């Protein structure tokens, strides 16, 4: 079997008996062995353990037990999500040697669904950056061009899916950390509404902004993976699983007219190559049933400042107090952010949270007038490893700010967001488009994403 990039294909071949869970596991391990030396997407793959689990899953399948669509599907997990017995260090030197005593809540669900955990993936240290170029495990590379960053912080999770090592990976997302690398690597990244996936057992960066999300090669696979990670009693999980065939199918024309706001963000213009791809895709998306109107977003700079005023102290509160880690051996960029977080006052933190409440209300008011909001995921294609800044219009912007400026909005608001690849620039680097929907309207968002994915494919 050569195609292990689709959950749907794996599930079909397992149910037909064309392949066993062990065949699939060996295929994934073989792809990883072949590609990981160059891409460094995975930081740990325990072959013996994977094959042992695959054997157990195959026995269940052979016994005719009722199994889920994720049964036997290889899944990669970001190295900040606890898997019992794995070295979970968030790719940070002070945390090396930290072995997870138990599974994170989402890993318990993944195992219950019969997924085959293949290993853990590289990431930006502590998930504290959107570039992916800071990692004590040697940074992962972009499969489209290994001289470029994969984006972060879930860098290895995106690179593993984009290079077809696995069909699904898990990431965490505090300011775009699932969507940024997914866009930079040309795959789908889905961050569900806040709290739909429990973050217990995920090394925190920022308690009130952290989410868990999925990365896959299609909207339907990202949706399916996420549905199994949600609470088994969650109505959203049931909605997605019950409508899964609908999400997989090529959508028929929508009966009602759908209104979409294309958000232009002040202070973060697009690079011309990205602008061209986005404009071309908007033309294709705009039909008699999908009306796209331009809107400008107010308070984008204030939102970014408030996001930092929340994330910095919350991260410092967790890591600086951890007496068992050697604080001085964090990388320089992480250390300075942790130091900065100590010096933000409670007054400023609370002001940021109060702003967040106002801003959430303002942003949600778009959904009174529009069904969805769309925006380019990144203003640039993946920069080169040595680039510290990018030029946007007449502005010089740090790569970190370029990655997170727009994406942190969905974390501030808590609304569901998904990035899908919409094309390539002249150097064959992928460009992504983000679609945002109202809180807990994840199913509608996924259907819309599927419709756009089908239109552009």
């Amino acid at each position, binding site marked *: 079997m050569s195609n292990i990039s689709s959950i749907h294909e794996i599930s079909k071949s397992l149910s037909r008996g064309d392949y066993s869970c062990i065949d699939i596991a060996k295929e994934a391990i073989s792809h990883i062995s072949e590609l990981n030396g160059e891409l460094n997407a995975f930081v740990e793959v325990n072959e013996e353990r994977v094959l042992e689990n695959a054997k157990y899953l195959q026995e269940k399948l052979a016994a005719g037990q009722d199994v889920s669509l994720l049964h036997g599907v290889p899944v990669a997990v970001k190295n900040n999500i606890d898997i019992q017995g794995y070295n979970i260090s968030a790719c940070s030197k002070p945390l090396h040697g930290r072995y997870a005593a138990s599974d994170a809540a989402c890993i318990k669900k993944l195992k219950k669904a019969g997924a085959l955990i293949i290993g853990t993936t590289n990431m930006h240290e502590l998930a504290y950056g959107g570039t992916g170029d800071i990692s004590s495990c040697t940074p992962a590379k972009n499969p489209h061009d290994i001289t470029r960053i994969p984006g972060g912080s879930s860098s290895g999770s995106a690179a593993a899916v984009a290079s077809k090592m696995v069909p699904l990976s898990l990431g965490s997302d505090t300011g775009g950390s699932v969507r940024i690398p997914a866009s930079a690597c040309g795959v789908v990244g889905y961050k569900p509404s806040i709290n739909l996936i429990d973050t217990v057992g995920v090394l925190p960066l920022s308690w009130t902004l952290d989410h868990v999300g999925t990365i896959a090669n299609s909207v339907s696979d990202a949706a399916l993976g996420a549905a199994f990670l949600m609470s088994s009693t969650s109505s959203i999980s049931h909605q997605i699983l019950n409508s899964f065939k609908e999400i997989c199918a090529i959508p028929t024309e929508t009966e009602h007219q759908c209104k979409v706001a294309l958000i232009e963000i002040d202070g973060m213009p697009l690079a011309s190559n990205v602008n061209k791809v986005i404009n071309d895709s908007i033309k294709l998306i705009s039909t008699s049933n999908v009306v796209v109107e331009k809107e400008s977003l107010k*308070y984008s700079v204030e939102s970014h400042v408030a996001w930092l005023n929340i994330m910095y102290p919350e991260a410092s509160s967790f890591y600086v107090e951890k007496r068992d880690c050697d604080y001085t051996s964090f990388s320089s960029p992480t250390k*300075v952010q942790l130091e*900065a977080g100590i010096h933000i006052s409670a007054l400023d933190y609370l*002001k940021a949270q*109060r702003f967040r409440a106002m801003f959430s209300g303002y942003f949600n008011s778009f959904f009174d007038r529009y069904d969805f909001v769309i925006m380019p995921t990144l203003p640039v294609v993946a920069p080169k490893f040595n680039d510290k800044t990018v030029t946007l219009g007449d502005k010089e912007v740090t790569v970190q700010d370029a990655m997170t400026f727009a994406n942190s909005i969905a974390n501030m608001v*808590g609304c569901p967001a998904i990035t899908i690849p919409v094309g390539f620039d002249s150097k064959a680097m992928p460009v992504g488009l983000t679609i945002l929907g109202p809180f807990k309207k994840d199913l509608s968002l996924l259907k819309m994403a599927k419709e756009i994915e089908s239109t552009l494919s």
Partner: protein
Amino acid sequence: MSSNDKETTCLNRGFSSDAYTSDEISTINNLLTYVAEIKFIPEDLLADSPGVKFMPLLMYREEVEENV
């Protein structure tokens, strides 16, 4: 950044200069200057009952309990 500037910045910001290089101190200073922009957001833009409104975590309590 000169060593005098380094000492002054650390003193003003309230952290030890020992653990950081001049570049790192300069970066910390720049980060803190940027995030201090929060002070200029006018009061009338802010939510007045943050305990109820500000955290989606609190707003969506039902989902949190369900997932525990």
